[in-house]
């Protein structure tokens, strides 16, 4: 009861009919309390914002961790007393300890892959865009949707808590290969921190499944009249395949994680066999450490597409809108998304070429892996053709979309090296891999996310973000991304292994000290500029320039037919009907033709 009283003052866009007599009563069903509007909200738009802001908090933490371990790599001989003040024994003498370094690396990977680029990216945009772009009032099950966020929140709390336990968080790398992750004797991070990690991931997987099932059923069942599947914007297609990937692959990780919990705590031997650790002979026999890698990568590889596909979809949409041209080859774009989604399940063992995998089996994985380059090439050439002879408006979203294409090319091409088992023998687990996946999965998807945030911010908050800050953000990020990751290919070609805290004792790898210093410096600058984005984001929620037109970008899709600040239910009256695909830009001399406009007889066919 008391909660409802707190709320009413905040409401500005709720129907005013209830106003005269609201003190302490709650017979007004349209009146939302603070709790039901901002906390346990079932409105997909609010849930999207919750995912986004939680993801941003995680991104700052994960990014800060990378700055810390880059400090160690860039300046191995220096000491920073402030680190000891902040982290105590983990940075005794102002130097990052080995355990701390590995904990930072592991948490950086876990946070960015799962909490930022999975939950933060598809959680945000699937929630925000699916109902708005297909013409639905909300998700199929708003309740499960809300639970999806709160399971993510729970996972976040557990993962965050794991950083404060005495033996530290998980530190065996984000891939948590057993036996290292199964044996507390083998590493500090494999003690309690690892259990926290596994429980947190289990919660995360529940969240992901609740969300994914919801996205799929909403897209299949709740499209508005006239919205056939082939009229869906590419964002929705991409989010649909993302959800399918997640639903089919995350349960496999859950099973892998549960078996690992059993091995850790119940004395089973799923992954353990013939182990002598620190002189102690363990009784476990007959398990297979490689089994875990199969289970992990059966999720792990689709996972990188779960991260990438939403970005592919949003970039397609944004490029088309701001080129004032239809996306080139819509069906080929859908087809290539489909091909990527199928192939995503058939390539997992390319992470395992050097585990002793049967070479004959490996051959199939080489073939299927390199096959992904074909749909990827189709996408790139189609984007280039979309830009060709367009009339390009460089909104911040468009800049990030173009940056995305550049990064997708650069990082995608190095995948052709690594997917080829012959070259993988040489390049596996070197900095070449670090450069590859950071560009194509990390930074590119991040760019997709930024593009999405800048493009749909007016729809989310009814205000614009500051353009000048956005331009600075884009140019520093793009230049910084290349300055950081381009040179790493050279380290990789020198054979430098990943996950080394210090190279100074290696005759083979010690030639890159100055490069490491350079990379670390750039990484810090790029990190600070991301804070500028965060600042811009929050400042603009309250102080940004107000959106005055319902359709500020002149776009065709349905979300721009809703009010500037849509309430729960999205459209005040009837849900609009759809008569055409989403990409009639520049047709018959008209700048754009919204999806809601009926096809006239005089119109040319495309």
């Amino acid at each position, binding site marked *: 009861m008391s909660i409802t009283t707190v709320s009413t003052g905040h409401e500005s866009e709720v129907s005013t009919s209830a106003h005269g007599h609201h003190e302490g009563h709650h017979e007004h069903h349209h009146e939302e309390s603070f709790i039901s509007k901002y906390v346990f909200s079932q409105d997909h738009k609010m849930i999207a914002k919750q995912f986004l802001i939680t993801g941003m908090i995680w991104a700052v933490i994960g990014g800060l961790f990378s700055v810390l371990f880059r400090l160690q790599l860039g300046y191995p001989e220096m000491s*920073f007393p402030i680190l000891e003040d902040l982290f105590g024994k983990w940075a005794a003498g102002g130097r990052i300890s080995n355990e701390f370094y590995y904990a930072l690396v592991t948490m950086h990977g876990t946070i960015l892959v799962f909490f930022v680029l999975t939950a933060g990216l598809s959680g945000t945009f699937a929630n925000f865009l699916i109902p708005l772009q297909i013409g639905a009032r909300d998700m199929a099950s708003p309740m499960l949707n809300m639970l999806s966020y709160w399971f993510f929140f729970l996972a976040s709390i557990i993962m965050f808590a794991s950083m404060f336990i005495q033996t530290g968080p998980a*530190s065996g790398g984000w891939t948590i290969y057993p036996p290292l992750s199964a*044996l507390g004797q083998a*590493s500090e991070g494999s003690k309690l921190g690892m259990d926290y990690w596994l429980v947190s991931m289990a919660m995360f997987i529940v969240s992901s499944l609740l969300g994914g099932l919801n996205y799929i059923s909403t897209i299949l069942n709740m499209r508005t009249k006239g919205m056939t599947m082939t009229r869906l914007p590419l964002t929705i297609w991409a989010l649909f395949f993302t959800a399918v990937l997640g639903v089919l692959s995350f349960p496999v990780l859950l099973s892998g994680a549960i078996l690992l919990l059993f091995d850790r705590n119940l004395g089973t031997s799923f992954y353990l066999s013939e*182990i*002598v*650790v620190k*002189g*102690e002979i363990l009784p476990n026999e007959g398990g297979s450490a*490689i089994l875990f890698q199969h289970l992990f990568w059966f999720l792990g590889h689709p996972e990188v597409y779960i991260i990438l596909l939403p970005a592919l979809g949003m970039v397609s949409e944004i490029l088309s809108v701001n*080129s*004032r*041209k239809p996306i*080139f*080859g819509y069906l*080929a774009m859908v087809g290539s998304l489909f091909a990527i989604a199928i192939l995503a399940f058939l390539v997992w063992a390319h992470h395992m070429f050097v585990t*002793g995998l049967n070479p004959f089996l*490996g051959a199939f994985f*080489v073939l299927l892996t*390199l096959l992904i*380059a074909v749909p990827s*090439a*189709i996408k*790139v*050439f189609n984007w280039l053709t979309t830009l*060709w*002879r*367009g*009339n*390009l*408006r*460089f909104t911040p979203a468009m800049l990030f979309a*173009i940056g995305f294409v550049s990064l997708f090319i*650069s990082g995608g*091409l190095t995948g*052709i*090296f690594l997917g080829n*088992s*012959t*070259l993988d*023998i*040489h390049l596996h*687990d*070197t900095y070449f891999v670090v450069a590859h996946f950071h560009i194509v999965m990390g930074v590119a998807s991040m760019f997709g996310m930024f593009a999405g945030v800048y493009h749909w911010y007016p729809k989310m908050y009814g205000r614009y973000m500051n*353009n000048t*800050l956005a331009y600075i953000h884009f140019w520093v990020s793009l*230049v910084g991304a*290349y300055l950081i990751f*381009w*040179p790493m290919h*050279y380290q990789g*070609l*020198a*054979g430098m292994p990943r996950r080394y805290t*210090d190279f100074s004792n290696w*005759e*083979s790898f010690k030639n890159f000290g100055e*490069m490491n210093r350079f990379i670390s410096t750039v990484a810090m600058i790029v990190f600070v500029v991301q804070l*500028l984005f965060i600042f811009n984001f929050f400042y603009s929620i309250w102080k940004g320039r107000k959106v005055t037109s319902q359709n500020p970008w002149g776009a065709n899709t349905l979300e721009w037919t809703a009010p500037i600040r849509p309430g729960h239910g999205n459209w005040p009256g009837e849900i609009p009907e759809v008569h055409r695909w989403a990409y009639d830009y520049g047709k018959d001399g008209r700048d754009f033709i919204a999806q809601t406009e009926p096809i006239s007889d005089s119109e040319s066919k*495309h």
Partner: protein
Amino acid sequence: MTTFFIVAILVLAFILVFQISKASEYVSVLKGEDKTFKQNNRINAFLFIAFLVLGLAGAWWCNEVFYDRTLLAQPAASDHGEKIDTMLWLTLAVTGLVFFITQIALFWFAFKYQYTEKRKAFYFAHSNKLELIWTVVPAIFLTVLVGMGLFYWFNITSDAPKDAQIVEITGKQFNWMMRYPGKDGVLGRKNYRLTDASNGNALGVDWEDEASHDDLESTEMHLVVGKPVQLVINAQDVIHDVGLVHFRLKMDAVPGIPTTMWFTPKYTTEQMKQLTGNKNFVYEISCDQMCGSGHYSMKGLIIVETQEEYDKWLAQQKPQYMTVSAAKKEAAPASADTLQTKLNVEASKPLAKN
């Protein structure tokens, strides 16, 4: 104090940038949004082309500075490594071509087709012909890469030649241990439950197997130049990886599942010192699979030498079994037979629970 100043400067710079950006927004409102939009569009279009030019120049410069420090600048030290280098250059040529074409097209289009009032965007929704071209052409290139790659892959992962020297390498946190089969050419049986480092059996060799009696143990790996070698790879605690950068090879060491890899070293350590111009050159074994807090320090050494040098080294080695029995004799004088029984008794003791 310096930290404080750095933080203060950063905060001030942050505020400054923010204020300028805020002011620019007001200016744009005053100037007219349309005018500002066009101006910004021109600036960004110019920046794209500048980024392309400077980026290509930067890539060239980066190559100038760092090429010599990569392994591309020195010959592969094994026969398999040479194949891998060939494949690398082929892939580099194909992807390099695609890289330059697509990146130049991307940024050139961004500049060329920047917004002007004069142009209307060209309505061009699809073209089956174009789409077919860029499905088929990449598919052909990839077929070549897959074909070549698999040819080399099967070659490299084929069975080792019969006359290959066998060396066992075992990883544990955080070092490598080698074992040579001795004169009989057979490695003695192992049982991990017999592992007892303090009594000279760090590898868990079963002394009951007579094949183990002439096995040699070493902390360095000695190889003969030009002679094929087959590594039998083990791990005791967690997964490690035998990374041999100069040979361009790598194979995981997995507890409970032995793996193998074979190659033929092409140059002795001395020859590599000449070839690389580095008088401190050594063949290093790096652990390439995250294995715990000392992962970065898990180094092993390989010495590639001529047959004579190798024979000389071999002659100085004493089988581990002899060392162990000698130590046992010293501790409690007993015949070899009783030593045998004693070891067996120890092995059959119930294991300590973890």
